[in-house]
């Protein structure tokens, strides 16, 4: 059977063409598949196998197509030429495909191993990935924590930086003196930590005298010091100097090793200024306190002495340095003056009562040297700002003089009261004595000397004279007016008195009075009485003999107890060698009627005291039972001046008979005895009872042309015109009138200075007939 060959040709051509197309498609798909996973060796294998098949398909298809074309084109001979090539290519393709075929297992094994390796690797990778993820989570967590820590650190650093910059100037220096850190406040005052990009040293930043010395704070800390503090100053460009308190501390690293120092600067300019002002204020207060006139002692609440001012040192006898820290009652011992019992500690009293207390009025401070000082004191708590008591302050003063003056004042007041009483008694008593003594005188003149009554009258007269002396003393003591003063030198008064009193005694007298002694304005009579009384006491104190030393000296300055305007004084000192007196006697020696003598009146020294006081002076006595007694009299002095007395010249009456005398006295008894006495003397007395009558009588006599030759006037007329006023009136009527003043107040200034008041003589009641006669004769210059 013959079959057509055309199907063969057709299938060959179409099949070759389709094979060619499919082969290219396979090549593309294999390439594309392999491209997606190039590391897959099995894909490589398939890709290459596919390429081998494609190569086979292409070579065969092209060969068949060419063969068909050449046969169709009657070019079979050409095909015969190239057919070997086609067959060879196909054979080569077969071999390649064979090779791929037998190597399939090899590739697959390798692929399997690779896959396994890959799986293992992937597993490992997965494990590692898992581990890494865990690690990653851990790291992320750690990283987050680290970031948080970093953030925290950054915040902390920012905070620290803010703190560092917000504090006072602070810098950190390493051990090589190089500034490592410096905050803004530091850099506002000093350069650093770098300058022109270079680190600078601390001594370059803030040069100081202590740099490069052993006092350098850094060197001290390097040598093992802990903290050093010193003051440093900084003068800015505008010339303002600031003072800083520099505190340097060790700066250590995390291992505790010394890395340098951290130094802070606290500006204390204002504090320094305040401290200086406070110190100045304290100094001022201290000076003020120490300058206070009173003693001041401060203690703490334990009673320990903190401060004594100058006066307290002087009074207590302790110096501040010695007394500081000692208990108060050790340096401030006070006792009761009366019983000697210790007084309660003022500190304890203040702490107990909590308010100001005053010491007992009789407190006496026992000084360290044994002195006993009357003190007036108060103690007060010292409180702090919270009103807590932190101590006690004692303020006290020496009141010894004040107490003495008070006693003096009391004594004067006592003397004054007694004196007023005594003066009144003496005045009345003198009037009585005038009658008694006058009548006795007249009686004796009218009796013969041999009359047996005469001796009785003489005794009565003697007793009356003694009574007169007593009234004179009473009057002197009681005298309220000023002394009858004259500007004299005390020299003569002292000498006359001493000679008079000590004459005939076994007591010698040493007088030491300088020639330049100032004059004094005194009543010579009263002062003589004082001096005599003093010397008389001295003489009586030295019964076995001895010496009285009288000295006088000028003294300048203020005497507090006397007239502070007076600057010049004469001081008279009378010292005996007697046995002296006890303090109790000394304290009462000027009291009236106080006496240690059996026959003493007790008025002598009282009168002396009164006289000296009335002369604006002072009399003091110092006496101990062994060393004798010292009387000191202080009198106001004058710079030497002459005394000029004006003496009124009286008319002279050569004849006594027919002389008319006007007598004025309020006491009837006195008028009577005067009438008798004047009549007995040959005069013609006219009696009136007061000054007004006297003036009228004198005026009437003048009008009648028979005026009185003499007027005797009582000085004091109770309820009527006294002698002084009446004399003035009479002298107005008749400037040549002669007026004698008569008074029992013998120490009345008018009696002493009668001339100044227009009188021509004075007669002191009670007077004897002779005294009256002498006074009239002196006034009228009559011949006796």
């Amino acid at each position, binding site marked *: 059977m013959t079959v057509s060959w055309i199907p063969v040709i057709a299938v060959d051509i179409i099949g070759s063409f389709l094979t060619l197309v499919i082969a290219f498609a396979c090549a593309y798909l294999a390439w594309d598949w392999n491209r997606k996973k190039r590391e897959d060796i099995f894909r*490589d294998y398939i890709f290459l196998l596919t390429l*081998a098949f494609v190569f086979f398909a292409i070579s065969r298809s092209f060969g068949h197509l060419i063969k068909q074309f050449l*046969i169709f084109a009657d070019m079979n001979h050409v095909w015969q030429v190239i057919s070997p090539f086609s067959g060879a290519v196909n054979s080569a393709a077969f071999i390649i495909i*064979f090779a791929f075929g037998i190597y399939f297992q090899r590739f697959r094994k390798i692929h399997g191993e690779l896959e396994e390796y890959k799986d293992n690797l992937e597993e490992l990778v997965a494990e590692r990935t898992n581990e890494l993820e865990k690690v990653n989570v851990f790291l992320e967590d750690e990283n987050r924590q680290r970031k948080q820590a970093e953030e925290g650190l950054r915040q902390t650093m920012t905070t620290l930086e803010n703190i560092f910059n917000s504090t006072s100037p602070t810098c950190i220096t390493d051990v090589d003196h190089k500034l490592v850190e410096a905050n803004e406040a530091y850099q506002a005052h000093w350069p650093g930590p770098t300058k022109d990009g270079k680190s600078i040293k601390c001594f370059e930043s803030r040069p100081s005298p202590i740099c490069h010395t052993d006092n350098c704070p850094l060197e001290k800390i390097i040598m093992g010091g802990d903290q050093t503090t010193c003051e440093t100053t900084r003068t800015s460009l505008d010339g303002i100097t600031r003072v800083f308190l520099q505190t340097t501390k060790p700066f250590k690293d995390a291992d505790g090793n010394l890395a340098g120092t951290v130094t802070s600067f606290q500006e204390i300019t204002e504090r320094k200024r305040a401290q200086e002002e406070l110190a100045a204020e304290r100094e001022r207060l201290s000076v003020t306190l120490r300058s206070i006139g009173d003693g001041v002692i401060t203690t703490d609440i334990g009673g320990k002495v903190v401060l004594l001012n100058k006066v307290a040192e002087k009074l207590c006898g302790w110096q501040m340095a010695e007394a500081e820290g000692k208990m108060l009652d050790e340096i401030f011992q006070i006792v009761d003056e009366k019983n000697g019992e210790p007084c309660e500690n003022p500190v304890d009293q203040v702490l107990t009562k909590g308010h100001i207390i005053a010491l007992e009025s009789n407190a006496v401070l026992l000084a360290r040297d044994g002195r006993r000082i009357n003190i007036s004191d108060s103690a007060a708590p010292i409180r702090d700002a919270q009103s807590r008591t932190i101590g006690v302050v004692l303020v006290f003063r020496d009141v010894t003089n004040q107490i003495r003056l008070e006693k003096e004042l009391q004594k004067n007041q006592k003397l004054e009261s007694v004196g007023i009483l005594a003066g009144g008694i003496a005045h009345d008593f003198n009037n009585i004595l005038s009658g008694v003594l006058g009548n006795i005188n007249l009686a004796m003149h009218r009796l013969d000397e041999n009359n047996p009554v005469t001796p009785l009258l003489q005794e009565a007269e003697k007793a009356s004279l003694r009574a007169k002396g007593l009234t004179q003393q009473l009057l002197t003591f009681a005298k309220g007016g000023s002394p009858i003063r004259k500007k004299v030198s005390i020299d003569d008064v002292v000498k006359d008195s001493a000679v008079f009193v000590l004459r005939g005694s076994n007591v010698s007298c040493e007088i030491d009075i300088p020639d330049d002694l100032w004059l004094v304005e005194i009543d010579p009579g009263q002062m003589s009485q004082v001096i005599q009384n003093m010397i008389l006491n001295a003489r009586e104190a030295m019964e076995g003999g001895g010496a009285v030393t009288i000295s006088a000296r000028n003294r300048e300055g203020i005497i507090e107890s006397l007239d502070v305007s007076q600057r010049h004084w004469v001081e008279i000192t009378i010292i005996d060698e007697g046995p002296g007196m006890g303090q109790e006697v000394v304290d009462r020696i000027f009291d009236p009627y106080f006496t240690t003598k059996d026959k003493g009146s007790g008025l002598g020294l009282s009168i002396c005291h009164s006289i000296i006081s009335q002369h604006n002076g002072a009399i003091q006595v110092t006496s101990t039972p062994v060393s004798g007694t010292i009387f000191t009299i202080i009198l106001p002095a004058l710079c030497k001046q002459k005394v000029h007395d004006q003496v009124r010249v009286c008319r002279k009456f050569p004849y006594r008979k027919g002389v008319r005398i006007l007598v004025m006295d309020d006491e009837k008894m006195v008028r009577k005895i005067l009438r008798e006495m004047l009549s007995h003397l040959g005069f013609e007395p006219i009696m009136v009872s007061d000054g007004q009558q006297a003036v009228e009588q004198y005026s009437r006599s003048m009008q009648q042309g028979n005026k009185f030759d003499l007027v005797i006037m009582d000085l004091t007329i109770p309820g009527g015109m006294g002698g002084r006023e009446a004399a003035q009136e009479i002298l107005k009527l008749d400037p040549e009138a002669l007026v004698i003043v008569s008074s029992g107040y013998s120490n009345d200034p008018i009696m002493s200075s009668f001339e100044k008041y227009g009188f021509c003589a004075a007669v002191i009641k009670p007077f004897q007939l002779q005294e009256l006669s002498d006074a009239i004769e002196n006034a009228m210059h009559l011949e006796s």
Partner: protein
Amino acid sequence: MHYNRIFPVCICIITVVLPLLLPDSVWGVQQHGGAEGLISHQIGHLLFITGMLVLFYRLRGSSASGAGWLDFKIFIGLIILWNLLTFYGHWHRELISPDKFVLFAGKVNGFSISSPADALFYLSRLDHLLLVPAFLFLLSALYKWRKQA
């Protein structure tokens, strides 16, 4: 990996290009010509078949299952069949008398089939009927693999 890819490509190129560029030398060196060329080609087919059989053998079992692998196995099977068919065709061609071919105008126009061998030879001339489906399965396998990738 890059080396592993380049190396076989180079082997293939050398193997293919040398016979193509120097076909005479190949023959010349052996100086066989004629039937010797056919035998070498037939050996090639045998190697091709052997390779494909080895490959097919290796693809058995579940190790090469899944999308595309069945298509690939079919492709291998068809290729083996194609090789057997063409091997037979090449071998039988040498045995066929030229008279079996009906020429027209100097060109083969028909074929006289007088035995099953002749019929099988005729069918071997229609080998594209195996080859084209074989490549279609290869295309299908590659397509599926590519699609899976």
